[in-house]
């Protein structure tokens, strides 16, 4: 698979990461992003009407793309167990419903999750590196990552250092990502930009490039712990960066919006954005994930409605 090849950058991009000033120059040389223009494009794409066969396909695809998530301080073995049961069989009465792509948990609960998912194809993604703030030493971040990997995590969702970003220490961010990628071993690395703290679309574009240059397998919008979390405009900017990166390197990076995606309608809008920016090659769980928890139930209710013709209700889906 394309993603597992070691990242070989064209020389112009290699030179960009030689020094802090080179990286700064490169990032400042990227074309700007006009806020009003982005938001208008997103609004127009938001009018796409997804009905009948497209909707049915979109619902099942979305389910298959979910990283079913629990990230609470009060998570317990019991909570992980019930989350995994839902991940395997989202609708107890309908075995035709596909299972989700992965569960996403805190790094110390990876082992429990793995146990509960034996015999399935569902991955375990761990948030690590001092999630969500990332305000711990690099050593602590690496240890956190190593712990998760040693427990069997298939994917690591790391956070970038937003303080470093706002201080302009772009190369430090790059170096950290590289170090964590190295610690990941065979696990895939998702790099969380925390777009809600980057604030501007220009910053999101720059951070996307730093992450991709450093070896991210996926770039991810948010931790879900900061408002706003994922938004459609931020997603569009990241998808366009991915497109440009592919043009420059022939390497395909995945994308994951996370937090605040609650309804089937929302999910369809994200799929439209994905389809019309990156096309069919990205329309699968290897290249796109939804970081979500309550989204799954809305997808299930919409799926039920499409089958029965009647609106469903919360009594007909499970609470994890």
């Amino acid at each position: 698979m394309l993603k597992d090849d070691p990242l070989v950058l064209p020389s112009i991009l290699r030179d960009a990461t030689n020094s802090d000033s080179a990286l700064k120059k490169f990032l400042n040389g990227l074309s700007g992003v006009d806020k009003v223009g982005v938001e208008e494009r997103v609004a127009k794409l938001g009018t796409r009407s997804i009905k009948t066969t497209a909707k049915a396909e979109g619902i099942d695809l979305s389910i298959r793309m979910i990283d079913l998530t629990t990230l609470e301080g009060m998570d317990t073995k019991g909570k992980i167990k019930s989350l995994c049961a839902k991940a395997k069989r989202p609708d107890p009465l309908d075995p035709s419903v596909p299972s989700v792509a992965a569960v996403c948990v805190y790094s110390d609960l990876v082992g429990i999750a793995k146990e509960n998912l034996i015999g399935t194809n569902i991955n375990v993604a761990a948030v690590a590196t001092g999630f969500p703030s990332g305000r711990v030493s690099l050593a602590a971040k690496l240890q956190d990552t190593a712990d998760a990997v040693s427990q069997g995590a298939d994917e690591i969702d790391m956070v970038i250092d937003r303080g470093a970003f706002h201080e302009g220490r772009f190369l430090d961010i790059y170096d950290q990502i590289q170090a964590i990628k190295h610690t990941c071993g065979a696990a895939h690395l998702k790099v969380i930009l925390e777009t809600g703290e980057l604030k501007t679309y220009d910053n999101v574009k720059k951070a996307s490039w730093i992450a991709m240059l450093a070896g991210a397998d996926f770039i991810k919008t948010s931790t879900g712990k900061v408002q706003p979390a994922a938004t459609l405009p931020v997603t569009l900017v990241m998808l366009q960066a991915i497109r440009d990166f592919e043009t420059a390197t022939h390497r395909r990076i995945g994308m994951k919006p996370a937090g605040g995606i609650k309804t089937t309608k929302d999910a369809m809008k994200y799929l439209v954005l994905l389809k019309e920016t990156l096309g069919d090659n990205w329309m699968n769980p290897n290249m796109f994930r939804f970081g979500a928890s309550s989204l799954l139930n809305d997808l299930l209710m919409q799926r039920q409605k499409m089958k029965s013709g009647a609106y469903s209700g919360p009594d007909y889906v499970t609470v994890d």
Partner: protein
Amino acid sequence: MVFEYAPAPESTKIVNLKSNYELFIGGKFIKSKTGSNYKTINPATEEVLSEIVEASDKDVDEAVKAARKAFKSWSKLPGSERGKYLYRLARIIQERSRELAVLESMNNGKPIRESRDIDIPLVAAHFFHYAGWSDKLDYAGLGKNPQPLGVAGQIIPWNFPLLMLAWKIAPALAAGNTVVLKPAETTPLTALLFAEICQQAELPDGVVNIITGAGVTGKFLVEHPDVNKVAFTGSTEVGRLIAQTVAGTNKKVTLELGGKAANIVFDDAAMDQAVEGVINGIFFNQGHVCCAGSRLLLQESISDDFLNLLYERMKTLRLGDPLDKNTDIGAINSAAQLAKIKELTNAGKSEGAEMWSAPCEIPNKGFWFAPTVFTNVSLSHRIAREEIFGPVLSVLTFRTPDEAIEKANNTPFGLSAGIWTEKGSRILEVAHRLRAGVVWANTFNKFDPTSPFGGYKESGYGREGGRHGLEPYLKAGK
């Protein structure tokens, strides 16, 4: 193909199409005894929608008489009362907006998404904005107590039928005039539905009169001796004739004519948004836009990269049934217009420009033209000079800002222009030097009732929108 969009048709049930329509004169729909009939069609399917009257000179005379009669009392109404009628019109348009949008798409061929999200909301907004001017004319800039002109004869084009009607009727009525309006030959239906809305609003008889017909009917209206003001939006060709016709009379005239706008993209533009702006500039409304960005002036140093992004983006344009909510590119309005587009694109090819079209499936019936880009175009090519009025973009390059401005201004037209750069001072300097009535910087094809719109040079004279849009309908008070 993953996630292919299923058809998402907007239902036409909401429209109560009549098999034939009469003329709206003096507050009533009346039969024409001297006019003839013709059929209006849906350009996407070529099916006949309705039979329409081609008004005769006698019909025109009756309409002008009705407008004159109504003028006596309408002009004497307190502005606040006139305003309340206009507010009623605005609100009813909002209430019937879906119906109007569907009918507009059926008769014009434009995608329902555009008639629903852009045309009709702007129509309501225009009436709403001008309603509020009716009782504030002292602030219009003509001194205290300015006076209306009398009867306005208004002729509008087929590209934004109801919106062009709103641009004409709203300010005229707010200022105290009464109107006789002729919608375009191929798109009469929303104007006729508007007449019904005038009845629902209890607008006094004769304040608005709608007479349908083609060029000849329009000529009768322009030439009518009791019309005080002529307002025309359409081709420069016809605008010229009108200007000649009213020469030496007391008739005030405003003209909104053709254009060949330059959309200038500099090397430091926000690339993706500039691509979007170029797309909107020429493919919005199938390029049937007088202010369309039909010439792309691309800074040479970024032209390859930009064009690659443009072509990739064009591949996601969806051409087809205007009533499908996912359609981006609708039908060309008529067989005649399609022939014109083809003539010019053939000229483009034979003059040596390179043509690329988006790979759209063309339906069997109806009039269609795939979004098309010509590169290697020079200013002396017909496709760089003449208004195509279709989804066809001509790409030229430039090296410096001075050269861009020179090329942009090198046209008898002067309606609009676009500037794409992230540098503020460059926007302002380029805008300062462009000879165009509307300059869009880092956006395109944006309209608002408060924002004056109109051209320089052969794109016409007079402005519509905002305070400037009132002036053509007023004269200084005593």
